[in-house]
């Protein structure tokens, strides 16, 4: 295992940035979000949760697909360029990494989303274990171990040092590129193991650890599905929902997008941008909307994460327990409350 002093991180970032675009948590006006590293960026690598997930690095909130240019009455189409530059996302937590896996299943399965695939190909993920998990975290419920994140490189902060371990070929390549700055230390392994145990210890004490996914997942089919889908509980749950898109936009796994045209005056730029199932025009069609009430849209979000997605993806949930929605919902609604609400139904009527 390699290590580097935390004080020396800026040198490491500089080194990585020499040949890569580097995304990492940056503090701007009191909020930490992933952004492109620059020398004067206020890096905050120790922040547990960025406001937005690092999903943008692979699936940006808005991205151009192609442009139509009009010259007289001829129209030419130019596709937007695919990502062709290597980049590194530094400091991703285990939950967010699992989020990328959720996206992979959507965008890399047939038909492959070439924009996403190009980003995945050129991106290297450096993971960071969560030192001080918070009360809103519940990744363990989905089988995620935040003490031992799995990515191209895994890192831990232990006693003022960043311990570094390459796990994949991409990880090895990145490690080679920055080797000058790292020191090999076999003693670090033991320290990391100690740290892992410490983190796991805290995780056990988190309030949401006991959350049960009983009644959700890929087994919810046929009658069980109908029962859950038609449950009156939804009717109570959605009521305070403001129909804003906060939960979907901070979520590391939400992958719905809308395609829009932008009139540049000389032609049209077609772009996609994140959509939100909370919005009234979500899946709006010419005839209207097939989810025309907020209850239906609210239900969509949670049924998708906890039922539809698992059914289509071998039982994998598309919630990773990052807890961002728990923190950010203006009305304090969230997926945990939804799961609990059904739990309280005592295994349904």
């Amino acid at each position, binding site marked *: 295992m390699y290590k580097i002093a935390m004080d020396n991180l800026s040198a490491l970032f500089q080194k990585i940035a020499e040949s890569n675009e580097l995304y990492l948590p940056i503090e701007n006006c009191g909020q930490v979000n992933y952004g492109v590293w620059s020398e004067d960026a206020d890096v905050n690598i120790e922040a547990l949760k960025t406001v937005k997930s690092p999903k943008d690095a692979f699936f940006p909130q808005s991205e151009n697909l192609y442009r139509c240019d009009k010259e007289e009455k001829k129209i030419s189409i130019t596709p937007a360029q695919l990502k062709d530059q290597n980049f590194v996302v530094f400091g991703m937590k285990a939950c967010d990494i699992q989020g990328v896996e959720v996206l992979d299943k959507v965008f890399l399965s047939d038909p492959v989303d070439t924009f996403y695939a190009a980003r995945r190909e050129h991106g290297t993920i450096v993971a960071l274990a969560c030192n001080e998990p918070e009360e809103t975290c519940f990744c363990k419920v989905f089988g995620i171990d935040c003490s031992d994140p799995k990515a191209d490189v895994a890192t831990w902060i232990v006693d003022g040092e960043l311990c570094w371990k390459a796990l994949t070929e991409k990880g090895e390549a990145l490690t080679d590129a920055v080797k000058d700055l790292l020191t090999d230390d076999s003693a670090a392994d033991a320290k990391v193991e100690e740290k892992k145990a410490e983190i796991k210890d805290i995780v056990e004490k988190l309030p949401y650890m006991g959350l049960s996914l009983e009644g959700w997942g890929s087994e919810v089919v046929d009658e069980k599905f109908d029962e859950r889908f038609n449950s009156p509980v939804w009717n109570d749950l959605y009521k305070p929902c403001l129909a804003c898109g906060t939960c979907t936009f901070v979520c590391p796994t939400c992958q719905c997008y809308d395609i829009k045209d932008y*009139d540049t005056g000389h032609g049209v730029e077609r772009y996609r941008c994140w959509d939100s199932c909370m919005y009234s025009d979500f899946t709006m069609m010419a005839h209207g909307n097939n989810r025309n009430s907020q209850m239906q849209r609210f239900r969509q979000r949670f049924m998708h994460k906890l039922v539809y997605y698992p059914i289509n993806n071998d039982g994998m949930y598309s919630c990773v327990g990052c807890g961002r929605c728990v923190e950010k919902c203006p009305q304090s609604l969230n997926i945990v409350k939804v799961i609990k609400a059904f739990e309280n139904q005592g295994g349904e009527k």
Partner: protein
Amino acid sequence: MQRIGVFVCHCGSNIAATVDVKKVAEWALKEPGVVHAEDYPYMCSEAGQSKIQAAIKEKNLTGVVVCSCSPRMHETTFREAAERAGINPYMVEIANIREHCSWIHKDMEEATKKAVILMRAAVAKVNLNTPLKPGESRVTKRALVIGGGIAGIQTALDIAEAGYKVDIVEKTPSIGGRMSQLDKTFPTLDCSACILTPKMVEVNKHENVNIYTYSEVEKVSGFVGDFTVDIRKKARSVDMDKCTGCGVCQEKCPSKKTPSEFNRALNTRTAIYTPFAQAIPNVPVIDREACIKFKTGKCGICEKVCQAGAIKYDQEDEIITEKYGAIVVATGFDMIKLDNYDEYAYSQSKDVITSLELERIMNAAGPTKGHLERLSDGKAPKEMVFIQCVGSRCSDDRGKSYCSKICCMYTAKHAMLIRDKYPDVNVTVFYIDVRTPGKNFDEFYRRAVEDYGVNYIKGQVGKVIPQPDGKLLVRGVDLIDNKQILKEADMVVLAAAIEPNKDVRKIATMLTASIDTNNFLTEAHAKLRPVESPTAGIFLSGVCQGPKDIPETVSQAGAAAVKAIGLLAKDKLMTNPCTAKPDELMCNGCSQCANVCPYGAISYEVKEINDHGVRETRRVASVNSALCQGCGACTVTCPSGAMDLQGFSNRQILAEVDAICR
């Protein structure tokens, strides 16, 4: 997708000299939706219009853009032409490449580029135009004339003669106006009263005319064809039906110190009074501010002496609400205040008077019974000086920038009358220019100079200095001999500028008629529509539109009447289809739009709305398109954009913005 034809007008060389019209047409063909483009020397001509119509038919056009002069000039022409060729007139837009382009730019390349952009904006708009259909509204067959001077009287008579009901609202106790104060008229020198009084009688007797004297317009709402007007009939304190006009009350009234408005405050009147002997109606009013009974509760003499029992102290103002199809403004003029012209000593000497005051002095019914005499000592003057352009043609803000138009002529008249009646009086006129454009006007002026020996001096008077002996020292210059002149005069007459009646601004605001900085009402077109206000259904009669003399006033009064008659003759009017329209699916029913609507055209109804299958009963805005005039205030107030303006929709305007900025 529209099929648009673009027609570029040369306007002879007006456009073509600065804008490469061929290029504009060429560029037009590159615009989305444009399937036809051509240029032609005069698009507005019969042949030009035929070209548009032919293209509409041959190319199946759905929209037309004409690049030409201002839409204010020929929009209607082209819309009508398009309509005759079978497309909706509101599918036509004008790109103004003359007033806004060729006439103000010199560089051909620059002007052509701009013309292309203006064309693009118009094309972008037409791409989003939708056919609009005018609605219909009723016409109330009754006209209102505001002002009972010669202009108002003539207009009312002409309308009445055509068979329509007409009401006159006159602020003072009698109709007659300024003309009733005049002694003689130019250039014929006939007696003003002799020609006016029969008219007054005629209008008063006319079965189609109803006169509200001592009344004012209080409120106006509605629109062309359907105005609703509140008229305040001020309490006269005299019962119009009972009063016989015997005049005893005026003889006996003990309050005699109020300056007479009719005699320009040169003498006084009683508290109960008729302004002048021939007043119509011949019913006095009680001036409550002067009346002892009203001030102290004591007196009541008039009530005692009135045999008819017509005195009504407890009479109250009455509000009459009436509907009209057309409104004619004939509010007339007043002389300016001379506070800014103290150098002429108007406020210092009783013998410095205005021309209108001179009219009263010369009039047999005036304060001096028609004898020309100095008001200070009653002596007959020997030297009289007239000063022209007092406050007219003024280059600074002391006076008016315009020429009052009538002064040259009435001064010649005064000079001539004085020289005729009092040959021993010397008359000197200081003038800047003498303007006599009018039938027999110059001849009239020359008679004053040549036959009556009036001394005209081209030059201005700098100061009038009252002397201890009561004479007036006039200091001026003679510009022709280029010398200073000092002249002793017994009387000085100032040809003060005329200005619109001070109430006209209030009235214009009520009528939403536009008014210029001098308070003259603006005509719809200075040359082609001089008696109409830009506000539909409002017509202009007399000096309220600009300075003019009696024959001009009378002819304009007739013209305004004809326009009003033309309107009243219609049973229905087509209403402007460019009105606001709410999208009920989006409307919140918040009432903000109704708050800013100047016409009260927006109301609310609770109804069931079906939004793609979701039914809900709720409050939504509804626009009365007959009342809506299409200003668009509501569209901006509406936060969701539920309210839009047809013909000037959000998307249309944005398309123009985009086209200009791209």
